[in-house]
């Protein structure tokens, strides 16, 4: 039990939190990026759009926001490992556009 938990922590958020994050991306990020993440006020966050952009940079944008744009900093609601997990999901297309 303990071992399983610590292993999960290293791989990112736990399963239940992953589900929450997935909902959050669709609904809350989706409010600006579109629920299918094909864009709205914010740009599309589809694998094609994110291709070639470094994970670190994208994590930084998510946590810190982008000054003078509508992209807010999420660091009070997400930690670094959660933002990293979201970036991986977005890049692989596991969340979003069907």
């Amino acid at each position, binding site marked *: 039990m303990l071992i399983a938990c610590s292993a999960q922590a290293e791989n990112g958020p736990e399963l239940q939190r992953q589900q929450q994050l997935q909902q959050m991306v*669709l*609904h*809350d990020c*989706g*409010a*600006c990026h*579109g*629920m*299918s993440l*094909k*864009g*709205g*006020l914010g740009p599309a966050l589809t694998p094609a759009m994110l291709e070639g952009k470094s994970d670190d940079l994208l994590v930084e944008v998510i946590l810190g*926001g982008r000054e*003078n744009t*509508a992209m*807010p*900093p*999420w660091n*009070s*609601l997400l930690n670094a490992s959660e933002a990293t997990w979201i970036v991986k999901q977005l890049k692989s297309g596991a969340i979003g556009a069907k």
Partner: protein
Amino acid sequence: MDRKTTQIRRHRRKVTMKYRALAGLFIAASTTLVAWAAVRGTGDLGIIIERTSGSITVVETTQHTVLGRIPGLGDLSHASAVFSRDTRYAYVFGRDGGLTKIDLLEQKISHRVIQAGNSIGGAISQDGRLIAVSNYEPGGVRVFDSETLQPVADIPAIHGAGDAVSRVVGLVDAPGNRFVFSLFDAGEIWIADFSDRDNPEILKLTGAGNQPYDALITPDGRYYIAGLFGEDGLALVDLWQPQQGIRRILPDYGRGEEKLPVYKMPHLEGWAAAGDHLFVPAVGRHEVIAINRHDWSEAQRIPVHGQPVFVMARPDGRHLWVNFALPDNDTVQVIDASTMAVVHELKPGKGVLHMEFTPRGEAVWVSVRDTDRVNVYDTGSFRQITAIDVEKPSGIFFTARAHMTGL
């Protein structure tokens, strides 16, 4: 002829007439049985957007019941609706550019077109004959015949010297069969006059400010006000004298203060007027701003629970109901318009996305995304009257909007 026979004859005639009338009814009933059985008005109807399923739920607000559910409307993640003036049809604007005309009585889609790649909202003209949609992609406004959804006009939001195209927000209808909208990326406000529908005239006003994100029109249809995301203040146009251009109001609002993160863009649609004031959500501050309607100065800042999203006036203007962005989207606060103080707070559940008052305001319907419910409250006692199951509900739109400018 004696008295008795006359009476009998009269009686016979009455009987035959009765039978004829009955036979007529039977024929009518058997040919249009469904429609006949469902005869009703539409003044107490409304629709609720189901965000994730691409469906809408048709409701009536007298008995608080669901009348039906209509699937097949595409991506409704930022959907809104307007109504035909006979309040039989709803026009639903989907995120994916879908424009769907719905027959509320027969509860079916009557027309549907995909008119753009990414859209944000729409409006119906003063005469009820045109539907305009504001698009992000391709940026601009497209106008359709409300009867057939056939295209009438295309207004690309090309601005500046080159061929830059702006996303369009804050589209409303205005008297004179006009549509007014804002160019998010260009800081312009355009007025499209469709009084001659085949030759629309467009007046372009520059200098609205940085990133107008949404707009409202006063209920008399005279003033158009756009909120700015990229800087402080709001942009005002007097539609009685549009050639006078844009006037900036509240330019110093919050100057020099640190802005809080905005996790969801506020909306200006639910404009709220009570007495001498107009109430709007602040951007990046946990405040509702009361603006003096006569000189457009700041009258008061009302501290609230979080970043306000909708500030909706009860139809009598006495109370304002406010919901909030993440992480406070489980809360609704009620402000008294005369004292400008919060008088009540509710916790309907996580993901409170929208609120809509019944036509005369005795009840308010509140959509709560994460509980898959729409809660109905008594606006006098704040007690919950009932709740209705709706999958991931967001926008709620009642047919009373049909007769209000800007809605």
